[in-house]
């Protein structure tokens, strides 16, 4: 078996399986789940193979149909998207394992199309990551977005309206993005990223290039839900089926963050994005606003998923802040946070789904006594929450540490304050939940004999839901402990050499 086709198989397999699932589901409904798992598993194996090849042999170039790059479509995998691919396919696989029981309960009549679209979403996201062609990114972006709209729309009461708003906002974002491609194309006549990065430096003062760059930035910012363009995000995450939130929240916005890094630092040379136009500087302030606003809004929520959604907005702020700081430490922190946040948010949404599955509610004021009922689930929640707050040795701490170092290197004291304050705000809204979950149901008075409590029976999630949650939570801790290895072997090379 040759490894060279892995770069394309990782997209093709889920894409084709999406249709296979739809067909097969017509005859045998039960077959959808194993087929989905198999496809995602193949993707995951491919991603490992790709990363391994990148580490041992360097950047992979895959030319579609043998056409040479500036004309043909090219897939390029280097360190930056190599690790993104592993992360995406792994989380997709884990969430897919989890999905069975939750979907059967929440949307029993739509299992077949759900899995089909689920695979389309994954194929789209992986496609965005793997391709080296600007317009190809747009196509995959729309595949992923359309899948995401559909996956959200099947949710509970508010979902269709949330999905419709998302369609409108998302389409505007995508339109800006491909309008940007148009402007860049006018002056260069190329769509290949590597080719463009050679052609563009001579044209950096061209107005069309500047407009194109601005359109890219705005388009991606809308798609990633960067404050203040986030309005579609909270409703979508809240009303979508649990599994949808658990797959979109950790993956979609992260892929957009990846795209931002790609465009800022590969398509355009870093000195363009940093020095020629002060875009990174503007972004840092926007991101800082997002961090604070997201955290404060999260505190105001009583719905667990909505709270997590606002926390996502804050965390997108972290990632963009790291990109905007545009130095080695900042970008390292940013990339590490992409990874960490995917795991933490994945865990948290899986837990939210689990609570929804067992209790049928998400109101955090009613969480009392949950630790007795679901000790393992709440344990994983606590780990992920501690990581969100940034308590060592979980992953979240280290990404924040690098971001703080990045802010120090950039001599941006204000952002250090923002990062530290947001840590505390995170503590406020996560400890509110932990506190509720770990306390007994209210007793009238604390008697000296310890009070009598209603006995709560243990009622843990089924294993098919519990194990994926545990895996992701273990990932949160392992990513923290071994963060130096990840940085030394992968992320170090993903940061542009000029930093």
């Amino acid at each position, binding site marked *: 078996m040759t490894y060279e086709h892995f770069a394309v198989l990782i997209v093709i397999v889920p894409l084709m399986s999406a249709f296979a699932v739809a067909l097969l589901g017509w005859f045998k409904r039960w077959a959808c789940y194993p087929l989905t798992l198999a496809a995602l598993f193949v993707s995951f194996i491919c991603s490992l193979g790709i990363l391994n090849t990148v580490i041992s042999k360097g950047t992979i170039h895959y030319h579609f149909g043998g056409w040479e790059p500036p004309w043909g479509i090219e897939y390029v995998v280097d360190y930056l998207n190599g690790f993104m691919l592993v992360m995406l396919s792994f989380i997709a696989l884990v969430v897919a394992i989890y999905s069975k029981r939750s979907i059967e309960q929440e949307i029993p009549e739509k299992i077949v199309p759900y899995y089909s679209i689920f695979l389309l979403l994954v194929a789209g996201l992986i496609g965005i990551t793997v391709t080296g062609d600007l317009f190809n990114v747009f*196509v995959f972006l729309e595949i992923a977005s359309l899948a995401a*709209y559909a996956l959200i729309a099947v949710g509970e*009461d508010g979902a*269709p309206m949330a999905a419709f708003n998302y369609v*409108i906002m998302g*389409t*505007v974002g995508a339109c800006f993005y491909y*309008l940007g491609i148009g402007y860049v*194309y*006018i002056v260069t006549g190329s769509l290949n990223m590597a080719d463009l990065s050679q052609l563009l430096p001579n044209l950096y003062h061209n107005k069309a290039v500047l407009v194109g760059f601005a359109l890219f930035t705005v388009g991606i910012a809308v798609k990633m839900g960067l404050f203040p363009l986030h309005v579609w995000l909270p409703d979508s995450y809240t009303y979508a089926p649990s599994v949808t939130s658990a797959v979109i929240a950790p993956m979609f916005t992260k892929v957009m963050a990846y795209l931002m890094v790609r465009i800022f630092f590969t398509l355009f040379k870093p000195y363009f994005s940093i020095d020629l136009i002060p875009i990174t500087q503007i972004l840092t302030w926007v991101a800082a606003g997002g961090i604070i606003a997201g955290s404060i809004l999260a505190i105001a929520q009583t719905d667990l998923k909505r709270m997590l959604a606002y926390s996502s907005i804050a965390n997108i702020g972290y990632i963009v802040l790291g990109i905007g700081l545009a130095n080695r430490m900042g970008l390292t922190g940013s990339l590490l946070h992409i990874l960490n946040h995917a795991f933490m948010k994945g865990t948290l949404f899986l837990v939210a789904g689990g609570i929804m599955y067992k209790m049928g509610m998400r109101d955090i004021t009613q969480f009392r006594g949950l630790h007795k009922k679901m000790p393992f689930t709440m344990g994983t929640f606590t780990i992920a929450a501690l990581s969100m707050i940034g308590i060592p040795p979980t992953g979240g701490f280290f990404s924040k540490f690098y971001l703080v170092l990045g802010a120090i290197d950039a001599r941006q004291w204000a952002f250090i304050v923002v990062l530290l304050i947001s840590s505390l705000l995170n503590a406020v809204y996560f400890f509110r939940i932990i506190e509720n979950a770990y306390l007994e149901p209210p007793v009238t008075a604390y008697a000296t004999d310890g009070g009598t409590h209603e006995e709560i029976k243990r009622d843990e999630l089924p294993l098919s839901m519990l194990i994926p949650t545990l895996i992701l939570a273990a990932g949160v801790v392992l990513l923290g402990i071994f963060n130096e290895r990840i940085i030394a072997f992968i992320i170090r090379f993903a940061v542009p050499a000029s930093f």
Partner: protein
Amino acid sequence: MFEYIVSKYNYWVYIFLMMLGLYGMIGKKNLVKKLIGMNIFQVAIILFYISIGSKVGASIPILTAEDLHGSANPLHYMNPLPHVLMLTAIVVGIATTGVALGIIIMVYNRYKTLAEDEILEIRKKSGV
């Protein structure tokens, strides 16, 4: 100034259409009208691409028998690539419209109305 506007009228048209679409998406209360706004927005960009591919006095990019013998002069043909890209974009646009219409049907089945403010009213009443 006037000359400037007229000479680039195709771009002005696309910008006008885009703004029209944007207004439709933001200003209209009816979901279908919003969707139409979105379509106008997309079409505006498609027109933009079409016009960047075209050249004055050039023809569509089909090689004539004459060209096959000599070397084809690119100046005689429009750039086909943006037009091809727009085939994809049109497909994407149609798909988006389809999904959006599907969602609109779901909304209608649930609330029996398509006016955004009425839906908000209903949702507020039901306490969701």
